[in-house]
């Protein structure tokens, strides 16, 4: 019996020592939950005989991992934070990869009447004035950052029992909003994945330029962390921004609908 | 012949209570000592000290001429020469032979020689063929005989026995008594404690009396009269020698 355990231990420990190279990538939970990576990564892994280790955490932590040098490449959707990341000398070769948008979802009955709002900011103002439940990510993620921008544009400081700061990922927040029959700002990808079986909330506001949600990929700066796999990271960036990666992204659909959009033609 | 054990100014305390206090105790090889005294008189404490399992708070000890330093390596070597059999002995989980072989294995014995020694010891206590029995299946008397075999197998220079015959069935008691009586002639000094006031009628031994943690002699010494480095022989011969001196003088 002892031998079986020792064997298992040995095998587990040996796995990092196996021939393949491993590229560590941090990304957001919503990116992972969209399921895109399951179609995007395998062709890259096969082509370059490597394995991409995906560590899905909140945007804040994803960037922190890059800063600490615990990952080789960062794939998030928080433009302002990404720009700061590069400006601070923590990352190099930032490239746009894809985009989708945010939507404001809520109960079918729309108690705050946001469907008739002209702007996203106005929609949130209506929610606040009605005191309708609004669930916030509360975790400094890209979504949360966008949400805060909208509150600022609306000239409202969200406070009170109606404003629920969940401190969790997009999935749990949609679940919570569903339970409480409240509103929330969600990225379309995660919402589409939940639509139907896991939530009865519907999209009540969408389409505004301000709800644009761009994704970027950045390699961790080798000057700061010499050990990072720069070569492999660069190849990854080339892959996702190149024709093959872009094709996979554009073609990825959930429930028959595309989740992400690419820049330019094809 | 040198003394086997020499204890001087011994004091053993448990908390504030003094369990044992003696001025001097000298034990000679080849004797059979019978330790008597009521409950709580310090018999077990003395045996544990002689077994080098308990360190007295005060006092000096010398075993076979060497001073007892209570340091690990030397202590272990000395413990291989003096073995204690508890009043209610603990048998290790497993077979009888595993128990009897325990101390022998610790001394590096193995293979055929080990098996032979185990068989011999079991025969001495009247448990021939008991090797493969599990200790859980033994009766009370059998268990204590196995413990005795386990100790005797080591042919120690000194064997300490804490009430070896108490509450023992007749058959076992006879076997054990006979074995104990034969030990001094086999080269093992015996110190045994007992409640039985008539034991000395059956076994010829030197009686050491304890009372309230002290030796029941006027000067707190045993032997009561100091005879320097000479082995005084058994009590009988001492008395006879005295008688001769008296007759001659």
């Amino acid at each position, binding site marked *: *019996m002892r031998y079986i*355990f*020792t064997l*298992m*231990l040995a*095998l*587990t*420990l040996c*796995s*990092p020592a196996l021939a393949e190279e491993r590229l*560590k990538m941090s990304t957001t*939970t919503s990116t992972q*939950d969209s399921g895109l990576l399951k179609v995007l990564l395998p062709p890259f892994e096969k082509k370059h005989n490597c*394995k991409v*280790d*995906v*560590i*899905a*955490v909140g945007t804040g932590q994803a960037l922190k991992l890059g800063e*600490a*040098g*615990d*990952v080789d490449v960062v794939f998030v959707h928080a433009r302002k934070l990404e720009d700061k990341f590069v400006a601070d000398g923590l990352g190099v070769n930032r490239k746009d990869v894809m985009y989708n948008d945010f939507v404001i979802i809520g109960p079918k009955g729309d108690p705050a009447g946001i469907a008739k709002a002209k702007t996203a900011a106005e929609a949130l103002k209506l929610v606040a004035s009605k005191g309708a439940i609004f669930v916030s990510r509360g975790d400094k993620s890209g979504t949360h950052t966008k949400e805060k921008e909208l509150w600022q544009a609306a000239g409202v400081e969200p406070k009170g029992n109606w404003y629920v700061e969940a401190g*969790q*990922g997009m*999935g*749990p927040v*949609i*679940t919570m909003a569903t339970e409480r029959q409240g509103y929330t700002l969600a990225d379309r990808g995660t919402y589409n*994945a*939940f639509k139907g079986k*896991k*939530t009865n909330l519907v999209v009540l506001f969408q389409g505004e330029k301000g709800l644009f949600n761009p994704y970027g990929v950045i390699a961790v700066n080798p000057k700061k*962390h010499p*050990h990072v796999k720069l070569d492999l990271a660069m190849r990854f960036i080339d892959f996702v921004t190149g024709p093959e990666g872009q094709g996979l992204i554009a073609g990825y659909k959930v429930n028959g609908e595309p989740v992400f959009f690419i820049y330019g033609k094809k | 012949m040198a003394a086997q054990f020499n204890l001087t100014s011994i004091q053993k305390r448990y908390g504030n209570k003094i369990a044992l206090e003696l001025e001097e105790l000298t034990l000679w090889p080849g004797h059979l000592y019978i330790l008597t005294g009521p409950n709580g008189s310090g018999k077990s404490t003395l045996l*544990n000290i002689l*077994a080098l*399992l308990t360190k007295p708070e005060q006092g000096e000890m010398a075993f076979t001429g060497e001073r007892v330093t209570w340091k*690990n390596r030397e202590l*272990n070597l000395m*413990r*291989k020469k*003096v*073995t*204690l059999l*508890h009043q*209610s*002995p*603990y048998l*290790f*989980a497993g077979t009888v032979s595993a128990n009897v072989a*325990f*101390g022998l294995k*610790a*001394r590096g014995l193995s293979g055929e020689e080990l098996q032979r020694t185990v068989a011999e010891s079991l025969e001495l206590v009247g448990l021939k063929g008991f090797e493969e029995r599990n200790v859980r299946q033994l009766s009370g008397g059998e268990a204590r005989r196995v413990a005795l075999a*386990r*100790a005797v197998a*080591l042919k120690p220079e000194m064997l300490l026995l804490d009430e070896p015959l108490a509450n023992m069935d007749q058959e076992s008691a006879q076997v054990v008594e006979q074995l104990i009586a034969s030990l001094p002639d086999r080269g093992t000094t015996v110190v045994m404690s007992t409640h039985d006031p008539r034991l000395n009628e059956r076994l010829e031994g030197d009686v050491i009396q304890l009372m309230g943690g002290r030796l029941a002699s006027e000067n707190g010494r045993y032997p009561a009269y100091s005879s320097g480095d000479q082995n005084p022989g058994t009590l009988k011969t001492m008395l006879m020698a005295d008688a001769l001196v008296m007759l001659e003088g």
Partner: protein
Amino acid sequence: MGFIQESIRTSFSLIFSLDWEVFSAVWTSVGVAAGSIILAALFGIPLGLAIAIGDFPLKRVVITLLNTLMAMPTVVIGLVVYGIISRQGPLGGFGLLFTPMAMVIGQTVLAIPIVANYTLSSVKGADPRILPTALTLGASPLQSVIQLVHEIRFGIMAAIIAGFGRVISEVGVAMMLGGNIRGYTRTMTTAIALETSKGEFAFGLALGIILMIVALIINLLLNFMQQR
């Protein structure tokens, strides 16, 4: 709750379809737990023995400390080890973070107090005649302690079983130090956490059922070894 029935069905279909991801997670769970408990036993049993048998000042403080460590939340242990093995930490040079080895380290730290504590209890509850008997028969202190361990092996085995239960069911350490990487550091528990965060309650519970089945099998095995 309709999803409980659905989850039972899902769990069996996952098992019988030999779903690769599920089996990978099971393998990782068991492998990491096994590695951790072996290391924890190597450190924890001697530690428990030493504290129980030894006589030293502050003995009570040490025992209280041990009891407190047993109640430490797994996230806290995860954070502390994270701080040490992250690239920014003192042992960052080894690049251990987000590997199975990191999880083994964290879970070993988690299990050592449990194994030590149970061992300590076993020794305290053991027959006080064991050590003196072995010593008087001429065994060295080390040999005597080994014999003691043999006599209390049932309790020592219980220590290992308790430690194993703790590590195979925990999420905090595995998540923080492993990163829940699919096919690499994803354990049953981190997979369940992931599925739950995606709102896949039935699937999450199905994985939970599989985990319980695996734990049951392993405990039957350990119990069998204990009785021998």
